[in-house]
């Protein structure tokens, strides 16, 4: 920095030169403030999405930086929401990045008094075994008139209104093929 520049950067001189004699405006702006940019413009990518709360179906834009969600806000292109979000929709980033989210399997054995750890693979294997065994235990081939039922009455499911259509489709397909019929969701609740 030359002596002239150094002189010009001296606050008193700066406020006089900039037309900000009381140093309440341009002269008071810190280098950090001068360099500020919205983090939406420095994101690595913007991913179109839909709000996961109610059924209005507001458009969302998910901003990702270094593989982390750094901002979620309304999508102004949506004909339904026009970029707006309610308090829940506005809290979506907190929802998906919340430290309260569980990231590990938790297992409670019968009559157990605490949670235990389990690997994902082991949990899936154990659940598959239980489905097969329980399905057989509650199997009904025919009704009292001898007409086919081909079902199990010992496995039930609850959930779906918060799931994707594709997820509900595969769940219904799997359960039905297994003969489980007590499949229900929030639509009634």
């Amino acid at each position, binding site marked *: 920095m030359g002596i002239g520049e150094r002189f010009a950067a001296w606050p008193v001189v700066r406020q006089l030169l900039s037309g900000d004699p009381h140093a309440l405006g341009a002269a008071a702006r810190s280098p950090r403030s001068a360099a500020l940019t919205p983090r939406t413009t420095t994101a690595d990518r913007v*991913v*179109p*999405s*839909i709000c*996961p709360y*109610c*059924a209005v179906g507001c458009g969302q834009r998910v901003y990702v930086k270094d*593989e982390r*969600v750094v901002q979620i806000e309304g999508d*102004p*292109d949506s004909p339904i929401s026009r970029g707006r979000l*309610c*308090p*829940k929709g*506005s809290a979506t980033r*907190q*929802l998906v990045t919340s430290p309260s*989210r*569980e*990231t590990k399997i938790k297992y*409670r*054995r*019968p009559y157990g*008094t605490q*949670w235990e750890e389990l690997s*994902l693979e082991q949990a899936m294997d154990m659940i*598959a075994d*239980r489905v*097969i065994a329980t399905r057989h235990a*509650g199997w009904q081939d025919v*009704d009292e008139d001898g007409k*086919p*039922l*081909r*079902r199990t*009455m*010992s*496995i*039930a499911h*609850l*959930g*779906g*209104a*918060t*799931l*994707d*259509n594709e997820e*509900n*489709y*595969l769940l219904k397909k*799997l359960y039905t*093929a297994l003969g*489980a*019929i*007590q499949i*229900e*969701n*929030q*639509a*009634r609740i």
Partner: protein
Amino acid sequence: MGTSFGRGGATTFQQDLQHSDCIVIMGSNMAECHPVGFQWVMEAKLRGATIIHVDPRFSRTSAVSDMYVPIRAGSDIAFLGGIVNYILQNGREFREYVERYTNAATIVSAEFEDTEDLDGLFSGFDPERGVYDVTTWQYEGAGDTGAAAGQRVRHFETDAALGERHGSHGALPGGRPRHRDPTLQDPQCTFQLLKKHFTRYTPEMVEETCGVPREQFLRVAELLCDNSGPEKTAAFCYAVGWTQHTVGVQYIRTAAIIQQLLGNIGRPGGGILALRGHASIQGSTDIPTLYELLPGYLPMPHPGDEDLATYIDNNSSPTGYWGNMDKYATSFLKAWWGDKATPENDFCYDYLPRINGDHSNFRSVLDMLEHKVKGYFVIGENPAVGSTNSKLQRLGLANLDWLVVRDFVEIESAAFWYDSPEIETGELRTEEIPTEVFFMPAAAHTEKDGSFTNTQRLLQWHHTAVEPPGDARSDLWFAFHLGRIIREKLAGSTDERDRPILDLNWNYPTQGAIEEPDAHMVLREVSGYDADNKAVSGFQDLKADGSTACGCWIYSGAFAGEVNQTARRKPHQDQNWVAPEWAWAWPANRRLLYNRASAKPDGSPWSERRRYVWWDDAREEWTGYDVPDFLTKKRPDYKPPDGAQREDAIAGDEPFIMQADGVSWLYAPSGLRDGPMPAHYEPQETPFRNPLYAQQHNPVRQTYRHRYNPYHPSNGQVGSEVFPYVFTTYRVTEHHTAGGMSRTLPYLSELQPEMFCEVSPELAAERGLVHNDWATIITARTAIEARVMVTDRVTPLLVQGRTLHQVGLPYHWGTKGLTTGDSANDLIPLALDPNVHIQESKAATCDIRPGRRPRGPALLALVEQYRRRAGLDGAESRRAAAKEHDR
């Protein structure tokens, strides 16, 4: 809505509300529960529309409405019936619309007897079984079809009425009705039957039943009529404030009748908008995780549906779009069992399990208590807080062999075995609970591809932004890999019962390190493909010969042209206001249903102001702002030839193409279990008698007799004075359902940090309740505590000459999360609508007193004391219960 119009989706879309001249919000707190959708109501208001809110509670919706009408919870049919009567007595109906587009002229069987004749019952009631035989409700001449009709009536009795949610109805056993009186004078035509039926719903009766002064009621009726007709349109918005009653489906039916009479269906600014509370709740009925349905509202087969032909015959209709059911059913079976499904093996129809009763969740929970249901998947739902009589739910969870819970956080339904009200009272002890629990972290919507179907039938795709953390996985991943592992374990099995799972078409490509199934390919299967494995363009491409596969026919076309149509995001600024190129709506991307009705019978718009879809004479086709909900080339003057089938049987001036007779139903000859026309019945728990009929309750409502599900005596029965107040439950803006997605977040929890109850200053004075202090709300199920909010927003009502106090209870709280509190759902008994098995959680009775509730076993003692006082204990209790069940 299915029974009235043919499809169980909202008839309109949220943006269309901006064109309404009058919007009635009833059974919904739209500003609080759907704030962003509510912008369209505010747009209408700024353009001069009148906004009316009818609700037991003055909410944030009321605050910005032009008119607020407080009403007794559970009395809406009387109010709406009063409007029907007002319209008919004063000739305010849109005559040409009613004559041409509804079944007003159709003649009903002479054997039909109305509630007017039977003091609150319709003909065909079987008091032994508590059900109706609906034969006498049919159109005149419908019985002519002979033996097959009996079986078809069976279907209508059991499955047909998924009511407002039901995708497609209007099937008629005999096809088109043969007897009509276009002058609407015949006493057996539905118009005259309707007039007679609603005659007693006078303004005075509305006042006595609802607690709404007659002048105020008349003002609503006048505003609605003044804002309907060729030039103007009015809309209704509702939510679970209507559905969650023992006569819930008939609430919606009454609104549907009003909108038909006023000519407000199929027209811009009109319609009935169902406001749903979960991101894909419409999707979860379209592709149902519901026991009685297969995708696209194909019913689950019954034991009597012995083969595919019988199944199709029992569930289709010769005329209207349901005439194509063979194509939809066959394509569905091909999607599931692929090459294994052949004409020779009936396309694997035998692989489908059969239903033969009530297999709804409440039934399953009772079966858990009896250890019949042993394994349970709870995925993205929290029944320990969110379900009615949640004590039953928790006791059920505590009596399983195994439970899988998938969610973001450790919700109450996963923690019940060490943290629940029953652990606190000592009713349950951790070390005695046998249930093996697997809690599995779920991926968020930002961590997976997939589509949600919103409240207006719009499928919108969300894309993966980041990978899910740790062991978190999508439910797609869970379903696919669980199926894969089970198939691997069963491989080589010769057991015949394993064939359906082993032969299942389960070959979805996976991607990435976590082997996530490709959701696009799942949607492609749902949408359908042909014999050359090319994506079909829509359900019109589907065939009954097994050459096409389609997982859900109403979603057919969502992947047309090998393009994921649900991921379309053309900005609304770059298209017309209907925005047809944003995402994709079922059916066939139509946004406003039955829009043929926006034009006169001759095809020209009813008015310039309300122009929407019309016949273009030059181009010889229907055109407009939306995709016509009609065959585009069918002329307005088309008359079906004799013997015409399927869509060819619908005339060019019949807009309701899903109905076998092409018109909307003022009177529903089939599809409902509790009456072809709505009638007011009192809620299961009520301090009042039914002022309209001797019949107190819905005679075919579903009740469960169980020690944990006692009902209060009502209307002056011994003990009813112990529970003198009516309570209603609801959401607030700041929280979401059972709290798993809101009570865990600081930014939302700080906005509504505690469970509270809302009471009027008058009730506070009567019971000594102090604002910001605590109150205990007591029922025979249990008692809960809540912070007291004394507010003018709750108002006592004058009903049948008595002052009624109502208590408001938000239901979001439970024992986990940042903000915890007692759960309002613990108070509500299970009593269900007979059509859709939805519980009555919007009106029940209670007592309230100041102070916090007792802790531990003392809570049980308090409830026991109330039960005794109400005569619900021991022998007395059994007598009271028996009396209560007297229909």
